[in-house]
C-alpha cells in the first residue's frame, strides 16, 4: 500500500491503511510512517467506518502501544514451576521450534485422548477481535474442541445482549438509527459517547443527531458519562431497569393504548397460539406453529399463504385445547407492573416512568412513514437502547428482553429512526461483484435467523445435553457465554458431573483472563490447575505471568495482516445509511524481532499438530460464506473457493485470496495496499430490511419453556439449584440476586458497579503511558466515585482513601471522588488495576473492581448465563492502601 505521499526529501514518509487497534470496533485508519517508524494515526476522511477522518482518544493513543518497550519479542517459557497470581514466571527465551513443537506435542496428545480436554480462550480485545473469534477459534475448533472458556471480556460480555441481538435483529448488538432518531432512552451504556459499540462511527452519528436536536434521556446509576451529554439523567438502582421497562410496557398497552399492532401481528411470534402446556399449538401434520386468522376464523400455520389477519389476542380452541396468543398472555401478565411498584423497586419517580411511556409513544409516531430513495418505510424516530448496565445481571434474560420488547411495541426495529441491528446485517454486496452477500431469513418456526454469524449458532438453540463442556454451554442451550469454568463452584460441579475428563491444555489468544473475567482468586482456581497453558500475546499480563507455560509473541495490529477483521457485520460495517466501507488490516511496517503474524502462526501450529486440513476447511467455509458459525459438521464439500484443505498459504496470500473472492481478481491485496479500502453506497432496504425479509421475532420464548425440564434436571443433579421460574417464555419481573441475598437493612448498603471509561478498553490501555497521563488528569477514571450526600452521611470526604468491602469479605481500596452524578446507593469504579511485571505503566493504577465479584450459579442468569456484575458492598475510610 503505502500510498506513498512523500512530503519531504529528507525522510521517507508514507501513509499506510489499516484498522484501528484501540478496541474491538475496527474503525478504518491511516498510519503515518517516517523513516520506518510509525509516528501518527488518524481516521480515513472518505470512509464511513469510523469518525470520517476523526478518531477517539484511545485510537490515537495506539501508536504508543506499538512502541511499548515491554512488548514480547521472542517466544518464552516459564521456568518457575509454580503457577498462581503474583508469581514471577521467570521467563526464558526459547526458539520458535521449541515453542511450537512443545505446544503441538501437548495438543496432539490431548486430541488423541479427548479433544475436549483442550480448553481455549480469547478476548475480542484491542486489535485482535476477529483474529480471535476467527483465526484463533477455528484453530481450536479444528482440534475438535468446542470447549471455549470465554476470556477477556468474558462474563461481562453480552450474554444477553448478543442473544437478544441475534433473535431480535439477526445482529450482534443494537444501536439507534441516529440519522433519523429524535428520541433515545439510553440505559446502562455509553455507546455514542465514546464507549461501546461502533466506537467512532456511533460517536459521530450520535453527535450529529444531538446537534440537530435529538433528545437523549439517560437512565443509569451513573450520570457522569452518557448522562452528562444527555438532555436528562434519570438515576436508577442497578439491575432494576426491568421494573421500569415492564411498567412502561404496561402503560403503553393498557393505558395509552397506542402501539404498533401491525408490527406485532406480522413480524413477531406474539400471534402464535399457546396451549395450556405453555408450548405453541402446532399443526398436527407439519408440526408448524398455528395462528388464528381473524378473517377466515380458523387456525393456520404461520406460513400459510392464505393467512391475512392473525389475531393479536383472544381465546381460541384449536386441536381440542384452549389457547391464547403469546401476546395475549404477556399483555395479561404485565397488568400487574404499575409504575408505583416500579418506582419503589428502581427509585425512578412514578411520574417520570409515566412520562417516559408517553414520550416514547409520542416520539415513535406509530403509523407514520418516510420515503427514502423512492421507497416507503415505517418511520419510528424513537427507541430504547441499552447494553452492559442492562444485560450484565443475574436477571439479564428477562431484563434485556424487556427492553427489546419496548422497541417491539414501538415497531421501531430496523426501520428509519428506530433501533438497528449493528452493523448492517443485510448486504447485496459490492455492485461489481455482488459480494459480500448475506441476509437474515425466516428459519425454524419462521423465526428470524442471521444470515452470517460467528460463534455458536444462535437460532434454533441446540439440543440440551451434557455436561461435556467445562463452560456448561451444552447444558444451557439459550446461553452463548457464561462465567464457567471460572467460578467458585466449578470443581464441585465437575466432580458431580463425574469428571468426564480433566483439562490438559489451555490455549489463550490475547486478553487477560485472570483480571478481566471475575475475581482473580476465582480465575486462579481454574487456571492454576491446568498442566499446560500457552498464550499468544503482544504483551505480558497477570494471566501470562501467573499461568502460561509458553508465551508466543504476536504482532501488533499495525504490523499485521488480518482479513478476518474485515468480514462480518459485528462491529465493522457502518451502521444505518452510512456507506459500506470495507477496510483491511495491513502492516504499516514489518514486524521486528521474532514476532510472528497470527495467521502464519496458526498455519504453522496446525501443520505441526496435524490439523491443517480441518483448519483450512473452517477458514474456507467461513470466508466463502458456506458456513460462518462454529458448528460446521453439516457443511458439504464442493470445490474450495478460497483455500483447499491441504493448501499452504501465507497470511498475506490468504488475505489476497479472500479479497479477490469478494471483489474480483483486480482487487486483491495489491489493490488494497494501494487504495486502502473500498466503499460503496448502501441501499435503504439493506439497512432498513425488516419489512423486506419474511421472518418473525420472539415475543414469546417457547424454547425456554421447552428446554426447562432437561436443563433443570441436569443442573439440579450438578447441584446448581437455580431459580427455575426464570425459564418462563413470558418476559417477567425477576429481581437480581443482589436484592435478595442480604436483608434490606444490611450494613452492605451500597452497590458497587463497574463502568467502561472512554479511554480504556478492558485493561489493555492501562499500559499506554499517554492514556495513563490522561486518566490521571480525569477526576473519575482511577478513583472510586461515590455520591456526595451519601459520603457525608458516612463521614467520607473527597479524596479520602476508602476500602470497599463486599459481604464476602473481599476488599479493594482506592481514592474516592465525590460526585452528585451518581446514585446515592452506588459506587462507580472502572475495572482497572494490576501488578504484572510486564506492564510497568499499568502497575498499581486504578482499582480492580472485579475482585469484589463472586462467580457461581447463584450469581448467573439461569437462562442466558450473564454474571451479576454488581456487588453489595460497604465503604469506609482507611489511612492508606494496603492491598497487593
Amino acid at each position, binding site marked *: 500500500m503505502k500510498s506513498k505521499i512523500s512530503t519531504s526529501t529528507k525522510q521517507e514518509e508514507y501513509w499506510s491503511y489499516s484498522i484501528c487497534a484501540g478496541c474491538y470496533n475496527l474503525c478504518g485508519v491511516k498510519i503515518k510512517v*517516517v*523513516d520506518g*517508524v510509525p*509516528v*501518527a*494515526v*488518524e*481516521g480515513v*476522511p472518505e470512509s464511513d467506518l*469510523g*469518525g*470520517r*477522518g*476523526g*478518531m*477517539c*482518544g*484511545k*485510537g*490515537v*493513543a495506539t*501508536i*504508543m502501544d*506499538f*512502541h*511499548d*518497550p*515491554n512488548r514480547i519479542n521472542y517466544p518464552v517459557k516459564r521456568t518457575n514451576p509454580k503457577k498462581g497470581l503474583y508469581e514471577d514466571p521467570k521467563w526464558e527465551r526459547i526458539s520458535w521450534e521449541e515453542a511450537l513443537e512443545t505446544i503441538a506435542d501437548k495438543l496432539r496428545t490431548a486430541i488423541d485422548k479427548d479433544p475436549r480436554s483442550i480448553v481455549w480462550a480469547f478476548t475480542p480485545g484491542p486489535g485482535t477481535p476477529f483474529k480471535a473469534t476467527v483465526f484463533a477459534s477455528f484453530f481450536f475448533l479444528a482440534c475438535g474442541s468446542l470447549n471455549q472458556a470465554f476470556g477477556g471480556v468474558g462474563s461481562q460480555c453480552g450474554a444477553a445482549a448478543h442473544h437478544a441481538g441475534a433473535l431480535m435483529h439477526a445482529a450482534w448488538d443494537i444501536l439507534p438509527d441516529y440519522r433519523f432518531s429524535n428520541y433515545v432512552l439510553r440505559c446502562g451504556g455509553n455507546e*455514542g459517547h*465514546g464507549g461501546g459499540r461502533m466506537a*467512532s462511527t456511533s*460517536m*459521530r452519528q*450520535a*453527535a*450529529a443527531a444531538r*446537534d440537530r436536536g435529538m433528545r437523549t434521556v439517560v437512565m443509569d446509576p451513573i*450520570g*457522569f458519562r452518557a448522562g*452528562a*451529554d444527555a438532555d436528562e*439523567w*434519570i*438515576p436508577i438502582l442497578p439491575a432494576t431497569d426491568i421494573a421500569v421497562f415492564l411498567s412502561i410496557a404496561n402503560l403503553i398497552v393498557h393505558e395509552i393504548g397506542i402501539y404498533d399492532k401491525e408490527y406485532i401481528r406480522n413480524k413477531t411470534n406474539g400471534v402464535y397460539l399457546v396451549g395450556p402446556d405453555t408450548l405453541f399449538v402446532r399443526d398436527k401434520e407439519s408440526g408448524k406453529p398455528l395462528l388464528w386468522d381473524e378473517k377466515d376464523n380458523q387456525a393456520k400455520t404461520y406460513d400459510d399463504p392464505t393467512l391475512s389477519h392473525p389475531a393479536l389476542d383472544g381465546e381460541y380452541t384449536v386441536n381440542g385445547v384452549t389457547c391464547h396468543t403469546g401476546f395475549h398472555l404477556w399483555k395479561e401478565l404485565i397488568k400487574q407492573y404499575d409504575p408505583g411498584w416500579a418506582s419503589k423497586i428502581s427509585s425512578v419517580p412514578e411520574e417520570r416512568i409515566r412520562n417516559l411511556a408517553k414520550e416514547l409513544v409520542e416520539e415513535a409516531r406509530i403509523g407514520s412513514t418516510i420515503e427514502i430513495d423512492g421507497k416507503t418505510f415505517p418511520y419510528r424516530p424513537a427507541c430504547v437502547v441499552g447494553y452492559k448496565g442492562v444485560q450484565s445481571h443475574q436477571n439479564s434474560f428477562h431484563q434485556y428482553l424487556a427492553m427489546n420488547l419496548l422497541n417491539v411495541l414501538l415497531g421501531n426495529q430496523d426501520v428509519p429512526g428506530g433501533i438497528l441491528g449493528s452493523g448492517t446485517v443485510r448486504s447485496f454486496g459490492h455492485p461489481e461483484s455482488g459480494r459480500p452477500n448475506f441476509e437474515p431469513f425466516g428459519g425454524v418456526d419462521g423465526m428470524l435467523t442471521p444470515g452470517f454469524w460467528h460463534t455458536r449458532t444462535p437460532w434454533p438453540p441446540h439440543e440440551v445435553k451434557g455436561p461435556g463442556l467445562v463452560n456448561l454451554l451444552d447444558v444451557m442451550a439459550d446461553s452463548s457465554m457464561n462465567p464457567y469454568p471460572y467460578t467458585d463452584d466449578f470443581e464441585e460441579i465437575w466432580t458431580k458431573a463425574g469428571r468426564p475428563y480433566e483439562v490438559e491444555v489451555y490455549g489463550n489468544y490475547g486478553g487477560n483472563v485472570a483480571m478481566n473475567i471475575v475475581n482473580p482468586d476465582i480465575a486462579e482456581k481454574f487456571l492454576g490447575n491446568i498442566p499446560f497453558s500457552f498464550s499468544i500475546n503482544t504483551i505480558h499480563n497477570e494471566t501470562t505471568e501467573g499461568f502460561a507455560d509458553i508465551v508466543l509473541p504476536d504482532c501488533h495490529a499495525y504490523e499485521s495482516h488480518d482479513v478476518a477483521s474485515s468480514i462480518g457485520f459485528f462491529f465493522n460495517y457502518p451502521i444505518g445509511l452510512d456507506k459500506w466501507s470495507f477496510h483491511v488490516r495491513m502492516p504499516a511496517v514489518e514486524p521486528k524481532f521474532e514476532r510472528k503474524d497470527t495467521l502464519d502462526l496458526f498455519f504453522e501450529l496446525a501443520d505441526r499438530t496435524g490439523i491443517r486440513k480441518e483448519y483450512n476447511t473452517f477458514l474456507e467455509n467461513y470466508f466463502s460464506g458456506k458456513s460462518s458459525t462454529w458448528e460446521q459438521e453439516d457443511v458439504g464439500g464442493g470445490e474450495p473457493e478460497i483455500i483447499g484443505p491441504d493448501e499452504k498459504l501465507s497470511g498475506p496470500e490468504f488475505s489476497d485470496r479472500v479479497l479477490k473472492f469478494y471483489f474480483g481478481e483486480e482487487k486483491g491485496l495489491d489493490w488494497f495496499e494501494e487504495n486502502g479500502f473500498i466503499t460503496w453506497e448502501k441501499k435503504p432496504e439493506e439497512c432498513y430490511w425488516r419489512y423486506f425479509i419474511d421472518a418473525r421475532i420472539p415475543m414469546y420464548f417457547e424454547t425456554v419453556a421447552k428446554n426447562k425440564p432437561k436443563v433443570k434436571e441436569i443442573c439440579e443433579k450438578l447441584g446448581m439449584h437455580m431459580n427455575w421460574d426464570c425459564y418462563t417464555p413470558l418476559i417477567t419481573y425477576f429481581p437480581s440476586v443482589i436484592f435478595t441475598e442480604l436483608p434490606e437493612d444490611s450494613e452492605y448498603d451500597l452497590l458497587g458497579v463497574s463502568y467502561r471509561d*472512554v479511554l480504556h478498553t478492558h485493561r489493555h490501555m492501562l499500559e499506554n*503511558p*499517554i*492514556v495513563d*497521563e*490522561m486518566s490521571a*488528569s*480525569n*477526576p473519575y477514571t482511577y478513583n472510586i466515585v461515590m*455520591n*456526595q450526600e451519601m459520603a457525608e452521611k458516612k463521614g467520607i470526604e473527597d479524596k479520602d482513601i476508602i476500602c470497599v468491602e463486599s459481604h464476602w469479605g473481599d476488599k479493594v481500596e482506592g481514592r474516592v471522588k465525590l460526585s*452528585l*452524578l451518581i446514585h*446515592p446507593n452506588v459506587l462507580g469504579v472502572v475495572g482497572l488495576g494490576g501488578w504484572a511485571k510486564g506492564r*510497568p*505503566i499499568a502497575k498499581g493504577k486504578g482499582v480492580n473492581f472485579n475482585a469484589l465479584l463472586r462467580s457461581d450459579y447463584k450469581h448467573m442468569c439461569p437462562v442466558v448465563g450473564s454474571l451479576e456484575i454488581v456487588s453489595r458492598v460497604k465503604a469506609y475510610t482507611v489511612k492508606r492502601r494496603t492491598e497487593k
Partner: protein
Amino acid sequence: MRWGMLINLVKCAGCYGCVIKCKQEHFLPPDVMWGRLLMSEAEGQYPSVKKNTYPVLCNHCKEPVCVEVCPTGATLQREDGIVEVDSDKCMGCRYCLISCPYQVRTYMSSEDKEYFPGQGLTELEEAGKKLYPHQKGVVTKCNFCLERVDKGIKEGLKPGQDREATPACVNICPTKARYFGDLDDPDSEISVLIREKRAVPLHPEHGTEPCVYYVIG
C-alpha cells in the same frame, strides 16, 4: 484575517482525541499538554447536576496578556492572530505562564522524560526529536498548528476546509465538534456558526478577547 476555533460542546463526547492527537502531532513529551480536557460538576441539586467538560487550548486572544508581559518578545502575535512562542527568544521566566488567565501554557523542563520511565526513549520519541524538536527550559503552548496552516496556504489550501491546512485537533475530532476558520470573515463557516449557535468564549470577563468559542449545550 484572524484565525479562530469553535468547539461545539453539544457534539463533544469528551473522548480525549484532540488532546492526544495534539501530543502526537507535536511529539510532546510526558506531562506536556497543549490541549486539555477540563471537567467539573457544576452546582445543582441531585440529580439535576450538570457536568462541564471543556476541551481547552490556547485561546489565541486578540488582546493577549502573555504578549504584553513577555520581557524578551518571545511571545508574539502574528498578523493572522496566532499567538506563538519563539523558543530562541524565550528565557523561561514564565511570566506568561502566570499571567495567562486560562492557564494553558506549560514550561518545558530541562529533564529528558521518558514515556516508559527507566526504559529509554522509544523509537517514536527519538523520531520526535528529529521531526519536531522542542527546546528545553522554555514555555510552550498550542500554536494552532501554524505549520499546517502556513504550509497549507502556501500550497493554495484553505485552513478549516482542507485537512492538510487545518489544525490536527480539528481533523481528529470523531464527533466533528471542532471548526477552524477566519473570525474576521463574517461569511466564514466559523463566523456563521458562532452567530447561529450563539457561541461564547471562555471567561470573556478577562477581557483578552479569546478566539476560541464554545457552543454550550
